[in-house]
């Protein structure tokens, strides 16, 4: 059991103008005016150190732009760290961004040959396992079509099958398992489990906590190019969720803080979850459909939840609760199976909840919606005290009321 990969205080800097091709004229001007090149530098990774033992499965998590993909590319030997050192032993195979592994004009079969030869097999050996690859990728009909005609799912299937069958010592996978249907994902996960059982090393990034839990025995959390923690999957995922919530809070402060009327922003609230399914926006309307942020007590309220799935969701749980400022739950409704009630949902859409009347006493209330997997195992998205609504009491009331429910008693004196 030796160290297969070791990363020693690696940093990577990108020049931002590198994103577009530069012409001679531009660089001549830059040279003549003596503009300093480092002005637009961006550090994708800063002083990252870790090691991977043979047979280990390392997960790398972090929000978009945390440096995960840059790290994986460096591990594959693509590009050189600006400082620090990476040592790798054995043959690595990478499933990095879709669209760069195959030549678009060559057929699937020709691309298999290219991949196989590059992985160190001879022509005869590639031909020997070609059939197996095609069968695994389930591409029998399309294998002689140019790869550019493939859908992203087909592309992934071919890429995965090719990478797995050429027996790499280290397999590096960047998020790609998110593509493809659930059944093929399952097949990939099983194949990866067998791969691991043979003592091979796996490094992957994923946004799906379940995949990280199932596949990895060590997880690295990256935030803004730096390692925040390295540890077992559970504590790493907790750390990641904490980071996620902090980010969401900062973001919520920017987005919602600017839009909501100042009087309503009493507590900023928080948001947590993996965001695989998320509630993008909430709109409150009165019974006439006018957007409002306050209603009369007893008046009707329409709550529109705009949701978005990052991948197809077979089913999920929705909760919608109304809390008051004292954090007391006034009302909650839970739909245990959105599919059973509404049928299959699109990846984007709007769920509408209508309250014909909202008999709550005057005050500030919060609408707290949540989306969960069917087994409540974790949270996709939960908004806590982020969306406020004011209930205005009737002015002609003869008594002062408090509490939660607006019950409208009538008073009289019996003599």
């Amino acid at each position, binding site marked *: 059991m030796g160290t297969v990969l070791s990363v020693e205080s690696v940093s990577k800097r990108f020049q931002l103008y590198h994103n577009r091709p530069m012409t*001679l004229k531009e660089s001549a001007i830059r040279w003549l005016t003596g503009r300093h090149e480092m002005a637009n530098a961006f550090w994708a990774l800063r002083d990252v150190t870790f090691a991977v033992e043979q047979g280990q499965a390392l997960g790398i998590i972090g929000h978009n732009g945390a440096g995960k993909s840059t790290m994986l590319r460096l591990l594959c030997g693509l590009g050189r760290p600006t400082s620090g050192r990476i040592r790798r032993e*054995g043959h*690595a195979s990478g499933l990095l961004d879709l669209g*760069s592994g195959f*030549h678009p004009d*060559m057929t699937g079969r020709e691309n298999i040959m290219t991949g196989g*030869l590059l*992985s160190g097999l001879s022509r005869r*050996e590639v031909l020997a396992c070609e059939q197996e690859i095609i069968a695994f990728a389930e591409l029998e009909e399309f294998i002689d079509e140019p790869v550019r005609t493939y859908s992203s799912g087909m592309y992934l299937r071919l890429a995965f099958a090719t990478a797995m069958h050429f027996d790499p*010592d280290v397999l590096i996978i960047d998020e790609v398992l998110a593509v493809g249907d659930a059944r093929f994902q399952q097949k990939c996960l099983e194949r990866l489990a067998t791969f691991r059982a043979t003592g091979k090393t796996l490094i992957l990034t994923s946004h799906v906590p379940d995949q990280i839990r199932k596949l990895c025995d060590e997880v690295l959390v990256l935030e803004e190019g730096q390692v925040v923690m390295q540890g077992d999957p559970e504590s790493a995922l907790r750390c990641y969720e904490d980071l996620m919530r902090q980010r969401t809070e900062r973001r919520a402060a920017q987005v919602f803080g600017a839009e909501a009327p100042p009087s309503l922003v009493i507590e900023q609230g928080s948001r947590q979850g993996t965001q695989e399914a998320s509630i993008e926006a909430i709109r409150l309307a009165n019974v006439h459909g006018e957007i409002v942020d306050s209603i009369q007590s007893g008046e009707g309220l329409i709550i529109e939840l705009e949701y978005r799935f990052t991948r197809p969701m077979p089913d999920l749980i929705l909760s919608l609760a109304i809390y008051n400022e004292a954090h007391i739950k006034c009302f909650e409704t839970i739909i245990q199976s959105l599919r059973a009630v509404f049928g299959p949902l699109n990846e984007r859409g709007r769920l509408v909840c209508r309250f014909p009347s909202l008999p709550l006493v005057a005050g500030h209330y919060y609408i707290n919606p949540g989306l969960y997997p069917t087994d409540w195992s974790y949270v996709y998205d939960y908004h806590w005290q982020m969306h406020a609504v004011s209930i205005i009491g009737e002015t002609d009331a003869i008594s002062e009321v408090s509490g939660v429910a607006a019950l409208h008693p009538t008073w009289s004196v019996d003599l």
Partner: protein
Amino acid sequence: MQRYKLARYFTARDKSPYTRHFIYHFDLLRHLVWRDYTLRYKHSVLGMLWSLLLPLAQLLVLVFLFQAVVPLNIEAYPAFVFCAILPWGWFSSSLSTACGLFINNRDLVRHPSFAPASLAIINTLSNLIMFLVALPLLMIVLFAYRRAMTPALLLLPLLLLIQGVLTAGLSLIVATWNVFYRDVQHIVIVALTLLFYLTPVFYRPQAVAARYQIVYQLNPIAVLIKAYRAIFFEGTYPSVDSLLFAALASATIYALGYMVYNRQQHDIIDKI
């Protein structure tokens, strides 16, 4: 050597690791050259026939121009031109396609176990196929004009090797620079047009005034073209001096090309 593990398992019985190594590299090179060659003719009706049609068209134009319009009075002119057009065509098509080497082969450049510099060799070899396909035709033309076939023809592989090294070296330079400055591909087109006239493809260098002869002595591709003409058309041996110079120049340019590439190697991957 880890990467050959599975491969060894398949054929361990009958082949030594050394043979395996050789088979592996041979298979890889053959596949990539074939891939490069077929990609060029994908979606074209005539396909590989273009390898023949292109030099033939060039030949017709030059023959018409310099036999009928501006007669140069060179005997067996079609044979004279054809034996220079083929090596020139190899050189110029290699260099003009070399600009896109790294940009158009992202899938290879980004493969963990592929050395991008080999693309220059692959491209040079796949363009050589065009030359080789047209070679029998050249033989027919030479035969039709009753040119003598001499043992000097045996020098052809050597000339091909020298030109191949020269082309691969220059390809590395333009391919690397073109990743950073897309202007290079346009400059190469202009430079090739200019060079075409500075290379004795359709005329005799002897017809040029003595003070310009230095151009033909210092331009390695001109030296090579003269050598091809010597073995094909004149049936004589090219001078040892000129071949030595060409070989030396090619090796130097290849070393230079590799240095240019090697310095930028890691930035290329970040840029494409």
